[in-house]
């Protein structure tokens, strides 16, 4: 019986559990788990919203051989029109454990492209992974979303940052830098030097809010045309992404002279072995006119600093948001957070090389929410 791609229904849940068990047994990778339930826990389909997720399965004679998730969301485009586009994520294939199913990866992607020709992928873990390799080969347009980080506690950073301690020699160097205070002095000096060179930011006020409301609509309407591509960030969307019931998020409203100029959402990342025991804060999302990115990232950084983070990370694509972070002392490093657009989507983003610097992409646009922001 041929493999067919079908919507994931509750009756498929036992077969998905068996599929997950096969992946787990053969790979010993606990992260390779397709969603257990047919109805997404995050952003389920609703008649009243254009922001929702749905799942699809590759089925063969009752067995699940793969699956993927498709998130639908409205975006503003360079031509000023709002269109709903699809985000393809979490593709899983039996092909990773049984090569006779090598075809499943192609089938899943082709199915998603047929359902949502305006399709994008984000994140993916780097160009050396199978999915981005496949997308590049298919001629998708792509770029890496810059990654920024700010070290707040150099001593803990030097001792805990596992990626910097890959060998005995590097571990010794990191220990020396931490113990001597040289690392602390260098990082503090860099931050001070960057701040001195940065343009002065006009004074602003910050308020922690429980949830977004109508004022966020005004900000969205006022600033949306300043971006070449941005996911809709009106109050309704923000309340779905950052519901008041979710205490992981800190929502900040930023004003100047009594007028709203932006907002930010920050939070603490879950523990990750590459960061050791450090507390890692994330500037998850934000919105403002590009010229007002600086107060927004300043407010977000201050909130995370006050919350006791050791390190702050953020992915920001827009050039002015990146500059605002750099002016605060954030460093950038190689990013494995990749944006890739299908040919149909990319055609609407031309000229891509100039538009890409004006696209607003953050971690909030990826598959990380709510687990991995």
């Amino acid at each position, binding site marked *: 019986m*041929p*493999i067919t*791609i079908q919507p994931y229904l509750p009756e498929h849940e036992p077969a998905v559990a068996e599929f997950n068990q096969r992946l787990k047994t053969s790979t010993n990778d606990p992260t390779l788990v397709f969603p257990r339930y047919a109805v997404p826990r995050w952003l389920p389909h609703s008649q009243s919203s254009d922001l929702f997720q749905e799942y699809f399965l590759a089925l063969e004679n009752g067995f699940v051989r793969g699956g993927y998730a498709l998130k639908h969301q409205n975006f503003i485009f360079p031509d000023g029109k709002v269109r709903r586009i699809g985000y393809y994520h979490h593709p899983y*294939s039996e*092909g*990773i454990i049984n*090569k*006779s199913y*090598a*075809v*499943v*990866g*192609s*089938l899943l*992607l*082709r*199915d998603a492209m*047929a359902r949502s020709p305006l399709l994008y992928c984000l994140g993916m873990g780097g160009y050396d992974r*199978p999915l981005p*390799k*496949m997308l590049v*080969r*298919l001629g998708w347009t792509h770029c890496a979303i810059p990654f920024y980080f700010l070290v707040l506690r150099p001593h803990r950073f030097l001792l805990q940052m596992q990626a910097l301690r890959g060998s005995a020699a590097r571990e010794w160097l990191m220990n020396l830098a931490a113990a001597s205070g040289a690392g602390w002095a260098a990082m503090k000096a860099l931050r001070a030097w960057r701040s001195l060179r940065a343009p002065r930011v006009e004074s602003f006020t910050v308020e922690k809010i429980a949830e977004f409301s109508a004022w966020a609509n005004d900000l969205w309407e006022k600033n949306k045309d300043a971006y070449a591509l941005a996911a809709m960030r009106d109050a309704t969307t923000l309340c779905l992404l950052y519901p008041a019931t979710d205490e992981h998020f800190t929502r900040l409203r930023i004003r100047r002279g009594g007028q709203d100029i932006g907002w930010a959402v920050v939070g603490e990342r879950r523990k990750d072995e590459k960061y050791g025991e450090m507390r890692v804060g994330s500037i998850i999302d934000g919105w403002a006119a590009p010229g007002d990115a600086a107060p927004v990232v300043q407010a977000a950084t201050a909130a995370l600093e006050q919350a006791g983070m050791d390190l702050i990370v953020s992915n920001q694509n827009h050039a002015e948001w990146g500059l605002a972070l750099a002016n605060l002392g954030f460093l950038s490093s190689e990013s494995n957070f990749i944006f890739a657009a299908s040919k149909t989507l990319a055609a609407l983003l031309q000229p891509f090389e100039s538009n890409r610097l004006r696209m607003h992409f953050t971690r909030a646009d990826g598959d990380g929410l709510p687990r991995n922001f």
Partner: protein
Amino acid sequence: MTVFDQIRALASDLFAISPDKLSVSSSPETVDAWDSVQHLNLVLAVEEKFHLQLSPEEIEQMKTIGDIVKIVEGKLQTAPS
């Protein structure tokens, strides 16, 4: 050059393997380098080489070199000249 020879040459280039080691029964299970990414590459290479478009159903049936040859030959016979 037969369709089989041409497809074998494409697969040989993609998988970096001698053509002599590829037969009609070669499949992802018998060729180390034939993974999901290379499968897609092979599909795209076949489409480009023979100027044809393969449907998801046809791609799903492409489990061996022999299967690919059969599908391509079938499409070439029905294609308008």
